[in-house]
């Protein structure tokens, strides 16, 4: 708050700001649009890729469409016995893991930032270390662990791993927001004799809705695209996920590149959709939070 007060002391001439602002605005806009184009290209490229056959993939420029669009790539991929199965597996594993991660991470972040206990910075440190282990170091130990728990070839092993590995980053993302959250509301609630659970579920959780959606989206992306754990812990085909389906297409002797593109398109559609639907909630969440606050 000290800095905020300082800022109020700065005053500048408003008229000169206006002209400079307009030019700046134009430049800014151009940059934003250019950047958006660069970020959007891969999707366009992928779409075009998925509509070509193998020869056209290599012979045509990336952003040219073939004379005949090969929609049958999608057909051949989808009719592959397992793609729809993989798809459903991906959906439910991702959903369960995301919900579990967000909830557990919110609990922990709340306890660390809002409650008073001695070991909190130590416990936070414990979680942060979780960010630092390379995934390939964990494969043999984790497989051993799940084998002992009889969880190999079970999707529970995936949900547990995804939740555990995403907890640190989710907690980190939540943390900054929890610190920035004004404490006045809680303090008032405490005065009124509210319980910890009530403060958490009815006051804090709604106030962090925006960051929860942000963290949720990030979690979703990670879980959806993960394949090393799936390949390592799962052996039955009917339990595997969509990324494995993609992997299977990109093999050593691949000739059907169009199908690779179609699989990739199919695999990003749900996440794209979820993202576009959910990301509006970031703004709405803020509005809701401020009303209650």
């Amino acid at each position: 708050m000290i800095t905020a007060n300082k800022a109020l002391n700065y005053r500048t001439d408003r008229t000169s700001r206006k002209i400079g602002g307009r030019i700046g605005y134009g430049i800014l806009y151009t940059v934003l649009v250019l950047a958006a184009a660069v970020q959007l290209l891969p999707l366009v490229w992928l779409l075009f890729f998925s509509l070509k056959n193998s020869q056209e993939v290599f012979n045509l420029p990336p952003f040219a469409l073939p004379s005949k669009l090969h929609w049958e790539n999608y057909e051949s991929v989808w009719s592959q016995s397992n793609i729809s199965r993989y798809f459903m597996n991906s959906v439910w594993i991702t959903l369960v893991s995301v919900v579990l991660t967000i909830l557990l991470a919110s609990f922990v972040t709340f306890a660390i930032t809002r409650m008073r206990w001695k070991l909190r910075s130590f416990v936070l440190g414990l979680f942060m270390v979780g960010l630092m282990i390379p995934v390939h170091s964990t494969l043999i130990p984790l497989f051993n662990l799940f084998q002992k728990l009889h969880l190999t070839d079970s999707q529970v092993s995936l949900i547990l791993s995804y939740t555990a590995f995403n907890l640190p980053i989710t907690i980190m993302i939540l943390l900054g927001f929890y610190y920035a959250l004004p404490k006045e509301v809680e303090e008032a609630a405490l005065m009124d004799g509210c319980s910890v659970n009530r403060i958490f579920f009815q006051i804090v959780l709604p106030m962090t809705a925006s960051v929860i959606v942000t963290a949720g989206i990030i979690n979703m992306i990670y879980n959806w695209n993960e394949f090393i754990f799936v390949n390592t812990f799962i052996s039955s085909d009917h339990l595997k996920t969509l990324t494995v389906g993609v992997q299977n297409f990109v093999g050593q002797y691949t000739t059907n590149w169009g199908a690779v593109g179609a699989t990739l398109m199919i695999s990003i559609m749900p996440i794209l959709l979820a993202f576009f639907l959910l990301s509006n909630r970031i703004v709405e969440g803020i509005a809701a939070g401020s009303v209650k606050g």
Partner: protein
Amino acid sequence: MDKVMSDKRMIALYVIPSLLLILAIIYLPIVLTGYYGLMEWDGISKMTFIGLDNYATLLQDEKFWSSVNHSLLFAVLSAVFLIVYMAVALVLAGRIRGANLFRKIYLIPMLLSSVAIAQLWLKIYHPTTGILNDLLASLGFKNTPEWLADPSVVLGALFVPILWQYAGFYILIYYAAFKNIPGSLVEAARIDGASSLQIALRIKVPLIAEVIKVTIVLAVVGSLKYFDLIYVMTDGGPNGASEVMASYMYHKAFRGFDFGYGSAIGFFLLLICLVATWGIRKLTATKDSIQYS
């Protein structure tokens, strides 16, 4: 009031489930990695205890140190680029038309799996038919670079897609953070005649200081253990010119059947991450912010 917020049972209820999960799924592998690092082990036959021999070898291993250099360089670069992402998020969080759409578009690369991104960038960097070299040739360059084959440019060529891939992630986080700033503070400053730039630098950025610290840690740690695109696009080549710590570890443990040595690298990577995080915390620590590490 203090009593309610320091209720041991509630704290336990909130923290212990998550703690147990990461102890089993993250700490067990960390401990075992440390243990394997002391062994001569191909991952298959019996282990032999060799004490710190692996680490002694590690200290002498030129290839390892060059991979450390590459990883560190990348970590610094990622941290520096956060400034750009923050600027973009600031602009988007302001009253700019289409901000919502831009924000969504910027995140698209992150939605794609590394397999798809790698395929795209391989096409861009292709030495004879790639978009980039086509463009350079049309601008009159004669000797267009062999982006992924030339040891002197390969590392830079790899950083671009990785930075590009994660741009949306940080923009999203900063955006949510800026949106979370209570509007009353900004309004008060504006009424007092502070310019947008002043408001941004003196009010908004300091207010999200905790989020910034978190993102620096995430960017640095994430870069230090980065693996995906490097593995798909160059596999650390040519001749180790783009090898990073995680890919080197993978090559030693899984390709070279030297799991003991690979584990030592993994453990070392963890230590470097810890030191880096500690350093960042020290550097960014300020008096008025809450210390939590």
